[in-house]
């Protein structure tokens, strides 16, 4: 059987899985494609769930990756509301929750990650929400509005985006964070301080360095959050955004190599050559940093969907990339390129007070990462500098009157 005629089964119909299916067809794959998704709807974009969609600026149809008719039209057997129960590598089949067994020639694991729940009393109360799926977002949208009090547990990107959207919808918002600063795991202090100040100006309240002990409720519905210091924060709903865990159990159970996610190479191939893993579930190499890690971002989901689709259809792999991500809060556009691995110096270009600045993380005279607020040139050029491993002159980089094109010249 030629590769183009192979049966490709994709487990997970999120951004990564949906994109892989579409790219396989775009790259000329002729064999059957089965796309298995746990959710009842076809693949959609998750980022707007905490932003444009939550604020009512985009509807469900806007969020679809492709129209619903795309899948039958392109002979993609999309199976909604279906989970994979087990992976049987010996006979190359997967057992699905509808009782069927599907044979594959190539398998793509795009099972994503799931929101981490807090193992504390009251976690089963109604009004306690996560934000991962469209259904989660529906519940959140119904819970926030003018005058409602929303408590957000976790001051990461999801938490801050929900806080911004909550304010836009007129809710009172308090963010509870266990670290002493916001975005502690993912951003530098300059950025943490900037976001805190900006959110406070918009009326968000913060409790930093606090530990959540339990959720309190009445008649089965959450009414407040109890902190370890004894204080109670009254609220009508809680969003828990404290990180995600890869859905890699099915791979581990089948004996595939896992670390913090399913271990893959630059073709997104796992330790079994017939099986690929892409998106949030994959633990992948990143040559520019000479290390392996797991990323939770749309650009990574797309990139790995490309890697797997190229490998399956016999195309050359995509060129190396600089990882990046973005976040929108109020009128702020944060664009991040790279990761601050091994950085030994932080350089701020522009004045944070102006709401337009960029933080560069350097290792010697090499840019490892840039966090750009309302500063597209710094982001775009930063991305190129990171990928090209091109040394910069720090004095020029620190001077906003020197254009980014000149910095990179």
């Amino acid at each position, binding site marked *: 059987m030629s590769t183009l005629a192979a049966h490709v089964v994709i487990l997970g119909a999120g951004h990564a899985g949906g994109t892989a299916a*579409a790219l396989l*067809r*775009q790259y000329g794959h002729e064999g059957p494609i089965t796309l298995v998704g746990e959710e009842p709807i076809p693949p959609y*974009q998750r*980022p*707007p769930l905490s932003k444009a969609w939550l604020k009512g600026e985009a509807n469900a149809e*806007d969020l*679809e*990756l*492709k*129209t619903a008719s*795309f899948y039958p039209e*392109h002979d993609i057997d999309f199976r909604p509301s279906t989970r994979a129960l087990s992976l049987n590598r010996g006979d190359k089949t997967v057992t699905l929750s509808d009782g069927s067994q599907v044979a594959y020639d190539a398998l793509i694991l795009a099972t994503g990650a799931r929101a981490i729940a807090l193992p504390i009393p009251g976690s089963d109360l109604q009004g306690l929400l996560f934000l991962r799926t469209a259904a989660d977002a529906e519940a959140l949208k119904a819970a926030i509005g003018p005058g409602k009090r929303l408590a957000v547990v976790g001051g990461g990107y999801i938490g801050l985006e929900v806080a911004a959207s909550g304010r836009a919808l007129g809710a009172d918002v308090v963010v509870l964070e266990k670290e002493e600063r916001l975005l502690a795991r993912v951003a530098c202090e300059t950025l943490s301080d900037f976001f805190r100040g900006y959110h406070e100006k918009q009326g968000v309240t913060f409790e930093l360095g606090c530990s959540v002990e339990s959720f309190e409720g009445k008649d089965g519905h959450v009414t407040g959050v109890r902190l370890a210091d004894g204080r109670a924060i009254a609220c009508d709903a809680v969003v828990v955004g404290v990180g995600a865990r890869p859905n890699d159990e099915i791979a581990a159970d089948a004996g595939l190599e896992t670390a913090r996610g399913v271990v893959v190479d630059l073709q997104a191939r796992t330790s079994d050559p017939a099986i690929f893993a892409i998106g949030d579930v994959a633990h992948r190499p990143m040559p520019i940093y000479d290390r392996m890690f797991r990323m939770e971002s*749309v*650009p990574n989901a*797309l990139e790995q969907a490309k890697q797997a689709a190229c490998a399956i259809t016999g195309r050359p792999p995509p*060129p190396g990339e600089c990882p*990046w991500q*973005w976040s*929108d809060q109020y009128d702020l*556009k944060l*664009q991040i390129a790279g990761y601050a691995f091994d950085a030994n110096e932080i350089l701020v270009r522009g004045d944070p007070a102006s709401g337009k600045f960029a933080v560069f993380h350097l290792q010697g005279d090499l840019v490892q990462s840039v966090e750009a607020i309302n500063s*597209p*040139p710094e982001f*775009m*050029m930063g991305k*190129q500098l990171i990928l090209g491993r091109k040394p910069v002159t720090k004095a020029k980089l620190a001077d906003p009157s020197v254009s*980014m094109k000149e910095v990179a010249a």
Partner: protein
Amino acid sequence: MAKITYIEHDGTEHVVDVKNGLSVMEGAVKNNIPGIDADCGGACACATCHVYVDEAWRGKTGEKSAMEESMLDFAENVEENSRLSCQIKVSDELDGLTVRMPESQH
């Protein structure tokens, strides 16, 4: 509704009907037209939906925002008529629009 012609860099043409209110980028992506990556899904954050707008249509596709201008400034192969297709909203006015794609979206 507008009929939009997307022309890939190698000359391959795709003619599709795109609903009002969608962006020119969404029209391509939802129809699986190659050549427009649109990594960020329309947030004006990535410049991977770069197109060239045919001269005759430049007046009708609106003005570039400062953000779009600034993103485009660092994209590759930028011309006078370059636009980010996620920032062009489709309306009846754009019926017949033709856009061409650059060699790559990086």
